[in-house]
Structure formats: structure tokens, C-alpha cells
């Protein structure tokens, strides 16, 4: 008998007696206020991330200019900003190891936790969200959902081959509880509130 069949047979044979129905999960009342952008920003702040409102239409990236001006290699996965490393041309993930700043757009944000979601399509190269030194995330305020429960109603989790919630930068406190950003992945995560460009009708 294969391991598979043996395991399944034992699970059937050893099934505990009794009825154990799958419970319905009620929709819980949100624990955030009306202003989801503010709630999102506050909660992401507690997780070590930053939120900036977009600058003027002429220069929406003004609030993150200092981060960008210090960067030699900028990889952009968004049409709003032209970096100097073309992610579409990358042939292997290790090629993005020298990226200083990566700019990506989040599918949605979560007000309750300050999380943002990416799929493989948003990142183009998944690894860039970890190998880059810093991450700048564009988020349309209209794309914020209220809480984790609402987030898991979104279709991405059943469709994307890779979907990830980022809530702040890479962090560790494995040494005496001292909080350190940039444990293995990005050292900072900045969310820039910038609406998506309206698709042409």
C-alpha cells in the first residue's frame, strides 16, 4: 500500500466518534472607525510601516523623494514611476538583489491591520519584495477593505499562484526582544496613497 493510501486508511479507521459539524463563521462587527485611510495608517505605523499621502498631481512621489534620490537601483512594477531596472526583463530572482528601492502597487489594503496584499502579477518578480532594501507601495484609498475577515472574501486567494500580505517591513526581535527592521527582507515599507489611474473607457 502506498504511504498515501495507508495514511488515508488510518485516518478513516481512527476517526474519533461523535459529530463535529463545520461551524458557520459569523461576520463580526469591524473594530475600526469610519475613516479607513486613517485607521490603516495608524495601524501600519504600529507595525513599523509608514503611510504618505500622494503629493500634487504633478509630483505624486514628492513625499518619498528623499528615499528615491538616495537610491542607485530602483525597480518599478508600476506605470506611475519609471525606475532604472526593468522587472519584465529579469530572467532570475537573484538579479534583483542589488535593488535599493522597489515600487509596487498593492491589490488592496486592510484597515484593521495596516496590511497590503500583492500577487505575483503585482510584483512581476516575487523576490523583489524581499531582496530590495526598501519597498514603496502604491495603494488606492478606494482599495482598502475593512478587516482581515473581509480580506479573505477577496478572489485573489483562490486565483493567484502567490498572494502575500505585508504588514510593515521585515522584522525580528529574536535577540533579547530588541526590535530590528530588515531582518532578512526589506528594511522599510512605505505606503503612498495614490489612486489608480482610471482605465480609459
Amino acid at each position, binding site marked *: 500500500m502506498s*504511504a*498515501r493510501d*495507508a*495514511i*488515508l486508511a*488510518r*485516518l*478513516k479507521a481512527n*476517526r*474519533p466518534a*461523535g459529530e463535529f*459539524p*463545520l*461551524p458557520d*463563521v459569523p461576520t*463580526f462587527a469591524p*473594530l475600526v472607525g469610519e475613516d479607513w485611510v486613517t485607521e490603516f495608517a495608524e*495601524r501600519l505605523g*504600529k*507595525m513599523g510601516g*509608514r503611510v504618505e499621502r500622494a503629493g500634487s498631481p504633478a509630483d505624486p512621489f514628492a513625499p518619498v523623494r528623499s528615499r528615491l534620490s538616495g537610491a542607485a537601483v530602483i525597480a518599478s512594477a508600476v506605470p506611475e514611476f519609471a525606475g532604472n531596472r526593468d522587472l519584465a526583463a529579469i530572467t*532570475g*530572482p*537573484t538579479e534583483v*538583489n542589488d535593488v535599493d528601492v522597489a515600487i509596487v502597487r498593492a491589490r488592496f489594503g486592510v484597515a484593521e491591520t495596516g*496590511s497590503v496584499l500583492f500577487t505575483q502579477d503585482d510584483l512581476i518578480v*516575487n*523576490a523583489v*519584495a*524581499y*531582496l530590495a532594501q526598501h519597498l514603496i507601495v502604491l495603494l488606492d484609498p478606494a482599495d482598502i477593505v475593512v478587516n*482581515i*475577515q473581509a480580506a*479573505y*472574501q477577496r478572489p485573489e*486567494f*483562490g486565483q*493567484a*499562484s*502567490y498572494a*502575500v*500580505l*505585508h*504588514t*510593515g517591513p*521585515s*522584522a*525580528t*526581535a*529574536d*535577540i*533579547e*526582544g*530588541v*526590535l*530590528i527592521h*530588515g*531582518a*532578512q*527582507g526589506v528594511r522599510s515599507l512605505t505606503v503612498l496613497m495614490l489612486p489608480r489611474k482610471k482605465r480609459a473607457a
Partner: protein
Amino acid sequence: MSADDLTPRQTEDVLHPEVRAPSDESERGPGGDRLQHAEAASKPIRADAPREPQPRGAKVRGNRPIDQAEAAERFLAAPLHQKAHDERLWDVRRKRDVAAHGIPEWEELRELASQIKTHTLTHLDHYLEQFEAAARANGVHVHWAEDGADHNRIVLDILRKHGAKSLVKSKSMLTEECGFRHFMAAHDIDVIETDLGERIQQLDEEEPSHVVMPAVHKTRLDVADVFARTLGTDPDNDDAHYLAESQRETTRPLILKADAGLTGCNFAIAETGTVVTCTNEGNADLSGNVPPLQIHSIGIEKIIPKVEHLGVFIRLLSRSALGSPITQYTSHFRGPRPGTEMHMVLVDNGRSERLAMEEFWTSLKCIRCGACMNTCPVYRRSGGLSYGATYSGPIGLIIDPTFNKRKYSTLPFSSTMNGSCTNVCPVKINIHEQIFAWRKVLAEEHQIPLLKQGMMKAAGAVLSRPAAYRAAIQTADSALRVLPRFAVYNPANTWGKKREMPQAPRQSFHAWYRQNRMKKGTEA
């Protein structure tokens, strides 16, 4: 109900003020406020000077019962380590309380999580088949492993087919169960742990002492020693940022050139074939997204039916573990990247047998948050390595004997059965009741020391015979033979070594009652 509900003093005072450091190196937010996410301590804790050698774990001698008490005593003999450990984990427990008290539906979430888990475990064959079909449809190679050895062989085969010689991995208790690192080392595969705590433990050739914070028993000085020895860092520099950065800089090249990446699994979604990992460092994402070959090791009890159920578990996991609302990264691996292979290994390793254990099968609900360890007063004072097993603390006491009843026969006795573990458990495992039940099983199967069982037999003989009992407690000295310490059977007088003996009263209650409340001649 809110965090205000907790006694104010609890947030102020500490039990071991000597480990509260004045300086605070932890990251701060833009407004200068101290950040407390991930596994960060809420206040600086620093057991820095004088230097004290790190106490090591239990002595493991083949199949002989682990002497947890002996290892715990050595841990206690290193007071700087013990106090920092206790204070650090109590702090995490406190953060957990604040997080839990901040969610009105907390207790309802625990109940839901428990019910989802018990449902899934009692229909596990069905959900595993559903998971397998979904994963295959996503282009994933699915493997089944009977036990740890099977798992290791399957992974080795995958690696060999790809000519892979090195593997980066994120933290996985399952691979600890399987003895994965040791096996791979013996087969010339270079395994690199990428969780900082786990990396520290790997470099120190020590097992993880905690399921979430593998190196929580070490001070920064211990880490500085390990890194100086293995990574060539400055032995006199124990700055946590320097140490963490040194690790990042030395691990990054290993991640870049690794031939394969492996992660564990926090939740496996049956309907979508998804593996979910929760990390603060993003190291599971590095392991899964950088190397050309991707492997996920999954304990079969990790299955949950649907994506929507993550809306329950994700809210519970990090809050229970660290008091943080969510881990920095919650990652959902469903299919391979273009041009690469993704493998999932479903591992039994005793789980299907545990399902048949009437009193113990619900331990399979465990989501490895470590909350029971953080709250356990015995664990905090003895260190995770004192248990000499993959799983330490309360959950270890009830899981470890399912792997080896003799070797871990002593562990269910390393508890006061105070029940705090059960109350913090996010999936409502009745941990302390299972500890009690294990003691019965072990006594019935004569897996407890003859001396101990003999003492209980003698105590039972005295306590069931009023006349014998009366005679025994006539004096304090003789009372102690049957009462608090049963110590007459124990030549070491373990009570009196550490505590003063109770004073002998003038007379027992029984004698007082006879003298004051009974008419002469009515005595039975």
C-alpha cells in the same frame, strides 16, 4: 471589555527589575514612539553583565526517560538567563492578554477555531484528498510521507533529481520532528536556516527552545559568542543591531546561491491547495521565491477547509503568539513560479495514530503559537531545552509522549497543572486536563518510577484507613510522612532544602474537635 480591564499595576511593575535595561535599542516609529510589533519586548530587557555561561539543555541518553527536573535546576542556577527568560516570556504573555482583551469576540473566535479544527480532524481523509486534488490542479507535485524518515528521503530525492546541493529554509517544527538538518548534513546537502533565531540555534548546534522564538533562552552575549565563533563577528560587540545585521549580510549570499528552498506550513487550505506561512522576517518568502526549486513540508493536521477560515485563524495566531495583530508576512503559496517546480510533502509522522487516542487526539488542533509556553510558569523557569524533546512546555508534555512513551514519560509531571495554558490556547486544547490524563496512562502502564508509585501506594494505604491516618499525623514529624512531601520515602528531603518546614501545631483539628465538640463517650 478592553485592555483597561487589566489591573494597572500589571503594566508597571516587574518581577525581576534587574533585567530591565535603561537603554532602548528597539525601532521607533516616525513620531518617536517605541514600536512593539513582531516579537519585540514591550520594555527593554537585558541580562548583560556579568557574563554567565549559557545553561545547556537536558541530557539525552538514548531511550532513557528525560530528567527535565535536573536540566531545569541547571537553568535556575544561571540566574541572569533564567530571569531574562522569565521576564521576556511573561512580557509576551502580557502583550497577548492586551491583544486578546482588545477583541470583543475573542472567546468566540477561540471556540470557532476549535470547532473548525475538530471538524477538519474528524474528516481529515476527505480534506486531504481535496487538498491534494487542488494542489495537483495548480501544477504542484504532491508527496505523502508516513514518517520523518520518509519525509527526509522524499525531499532528498527531489533535491537529487535537480542536482541540488544547498537548501535554504524557514522555521518548521515539522522538520525539527523529522531530524531534517541532521539527515541532510549526513547526505552532503547544505541546509541553511533563515529565521534569525533558528539560524542562531543552527550555528550553535542546538535545537530550538521555543516554537516561535527559537533562541529566547539565549542572551545577546551568548549570541555574540556564537556569531564570533561561527561568523567571525567581533566577540566584544554584543549590540543586537550589529549581530542581526551580521547575520543578514552572511545569510543573504547563501539564499542567493541556494539550489532549493523549503518552508513549513501554518495552514493548508483544502479548497485551494494553498500553503500559508506566517513569518515576521519574510524568510519563508525568500525561501519560496528565490531558489529555482520550491518545497513545502506540511503536517497533515495543518489542513483547514476554506480560505474564509483564515479570517478566524490569522486573527488568533499572532495575537496569541506575540500579542501582535498579525505577522509582518502572511504568505499564500498556491502554485509554482513560471519555469520552476513546486513540491508539497504531506507528512503523517504519528498524527493518524494520535487521532485514535480518545483523550489526546484534540492536541492535533495545535497551531504552534507558543502561547502555552509563554504563560507556563514551569517553562519560563526551566527553559525549553530542559524538556529534551522537539516540543517543550505544556503542548510538549502532551504531544511528546505520543512519539515515545518511555523517553518522555517524565514530562507530564513537569507541570503544576495550573490550567493557564488551557486558557490561552487559541484552539481551546484542554492542555492541563490532558497532562492529568497522561499521568494516569503512564502510571497504569508502569512508565513512572517504581519509587514514586510505591510512595503513592503507601500513601493510599494510610489515607484510606482512619486509624492508620490518625496514628500517622499525631506528630508533625510523622504527619510529614504522609502529608505534604511524602518525604520520609525521599531521603533527600526535597521540601526542606528550599523551604522551611511547616510548624507542628499543638493538636490536629481532629483532636481539637474531639476535645471541644464531642461529648465524652460518644467517640466512634
